[in-house]
């Protein structure tokens, strides 16, 4: 793997002055990378499982860099990764401001309100069979709708700043949470419920001790789904209008001004934020619902 990286770096360095040498080195690097991947794929163990996709990701980045620089692809079409990294470094201040506006304000507030309201509504309608039968198909239907379209209306109601984006995010995350929590509360089997009844447990006690724990895997499903939805909702809502900061604003204005390296840098930030929040929730899920069958070691 190190050989492969070294060859790749050399090929990139040689690309501008000595294209022929770069070609030879590049072919060698690809061969080394392929051999490395083949070897890693056969090995078991945590490290191999981690290194394999990493090597592949690096190879893709490298191919991207080589192709863009080597074939002199116009900058406005696709900037090389090195330029994106540079833009990330140079515009750190602006990007941090966008992150604050979009993620720390719109996404987090909307996510908390939407998921929380969805959860509470699910608890409320759970007590009535009639309401559940009436609301579940509707919630399923709304989940399939392009809710982002509500963004311009939200802007009209809540103003240009982040509350309107948070409102869109809240609406987008509400229905998946409602549907999943409602389904999760139905998870607990009749036998367990009967047992709780024979203990003389009250509704609330049954809820806290049996039904909520049983619903947790579904709730975490919704939380994970929502973390992606929330970011998409906030960014797309900003395409419709925002004060002069925010990730969606940056992407739409800078792509109109052909500063594609900043656009890509913003996307990198968004991707990192999305993956990290998803990873955090997944980690929490693993801790909290360790008993669920999907976490059992495969034998």
């Amino acid at each position, binding site marked *: 793997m190190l050989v492969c990286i070294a060859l790749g770096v050399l090929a990139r360095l040689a690309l501008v002055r000595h294209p022929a040498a770069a070609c030879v080195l590049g072919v060698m690097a690809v061969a080394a990378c392929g051999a490395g*991947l*083949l070897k*890693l*794929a*056969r090995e078991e163990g945590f490290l191999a*499982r981690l290194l*394999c*996709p990493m*090597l*592949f990701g690096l190879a893709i980045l490298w191919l991207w860099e080589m192709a863009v620089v080597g074939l002199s692809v*116009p900058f*406005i*079409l*696709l900037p090389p990764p090195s330029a994106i990294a540079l833009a990330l470094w140079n515009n750190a201040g602006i990007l941090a401001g966008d992150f604050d506006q979009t993620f720390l304000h719109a996404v987090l507030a909307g996510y908390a309100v939407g998921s929380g309201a969805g959860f509470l509504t699910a608890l409320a309608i759970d007590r009535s069979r*009639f*309401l*559940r*039968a*009436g*609301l579940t*198909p*509707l919630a399923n239907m709304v*989940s*399939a*709708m*392009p809710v*982002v*379209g*509500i963004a*311009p*209306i939200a*802007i*009209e*109601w809540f103003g240009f700043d982040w509350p309107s984006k948070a409102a869109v995010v809240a609406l987008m995350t509400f229905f998946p949470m409602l549907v999943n929590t409602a389904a999760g509360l139905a998870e607990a089997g009749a036998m367990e419920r009967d047992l709780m009844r024979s203990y003389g447990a009250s509704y609330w006690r049954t809820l806290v001790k049996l039904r909520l724990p049983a619903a947790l895997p579904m709730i975490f499903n919704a939380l994970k789904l929502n973390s*992606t939805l929330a*970011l*998409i909702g906030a*960014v*797309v809502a900003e*395409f*419709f*209008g925002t004060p002069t900061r925010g*990730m*969606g604003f940056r*992407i*739409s204005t800078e*792509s*109109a001004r*052909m500063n*594609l390296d900043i*656009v*890509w840098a*913003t*996307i990198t930030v*968004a*991707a990192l934020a*999305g*993956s990290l*929040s998803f*990873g955090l929730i997944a980690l929490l899920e693993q801790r909290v619902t360790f008993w669920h069958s999907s976490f059992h070691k495969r034998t």
Partner: protein
Amino acid sequence: MTDFARARVLPVGAVLAVLLMGWYVAAYFLNAPQAEALMDPDGPQGFWAVARAVWSMDRPVLPTPDQIAGNLYDSIFNYPITSPRNFLLQTFYTAQTAVAGLALGGVFGVGLAACIVHSRVLDRSVMPWVIGSQTIPILAIAPMVMVALGNIGFTGLGPKAAIVGYLSFFPITVGMVKGFRSPEPMQLDLMRTYNASGVQVFMKLRWPVSMAFLFPALKVAVALSVTGAIVAELPTGATVGLGARLLAGSYYGQVFMMWGALVLASVLSLTLIGVVRAAEFSFFRARGGKP
């Protein structure tokens, strides 16, 4: 049928009725301040006068459902089908983008899934990225792709379909990898005793079995594809499609334009899902299985 009516239609209808009533009430309270300011001071006063003014405003904060429906009816039937003001035409453009992108993403997604199932290297190196990419707000790149492709003279349906395809291929790939892997070891062993080739195993076992996974994945992809098509129509310069109408309505404060586009986008999404569901139903019926 009566059971179905009692279990489904009644509760859904009741909830819908409550929602509609709530909508009118909300419209009253949201619009009342503006409506009262506009009212003729010498005209009739009181609750019903305000209500009538509120529910028939030209630029309400929250339009009532009948106003939205009336405007949609007007747009669809009182303008020629070729007029850009006709919402049906705009919906057609969006549907075109969504379906073309879905086809693109479907073919690519199924192909990638087939490759992943048959190659350990791809499985180990690509699959984590496919799963990881679902956590990334891919929709954010839409305007950039549009601008970049537009710069090299690539406009119209192609770039929009590319965005939709890019969005919709992830759920299909993930679902189909699961589907292609779902035959049990016993069934695979049976194929081996028949001396079936890899292609035969794929065509006669893996492909039919994976259908149970294809349709749910398609439903997710459809919902994403309509959202994707709308977002692809947002960037400056786009003039056709529901997304463009949404943006134009937002710029010029045309409340009914926004709501109309929103309603039709939802109808489009639900229609496409209905088509997938019908295909699923007839497919499993033809196979003799339970729908």
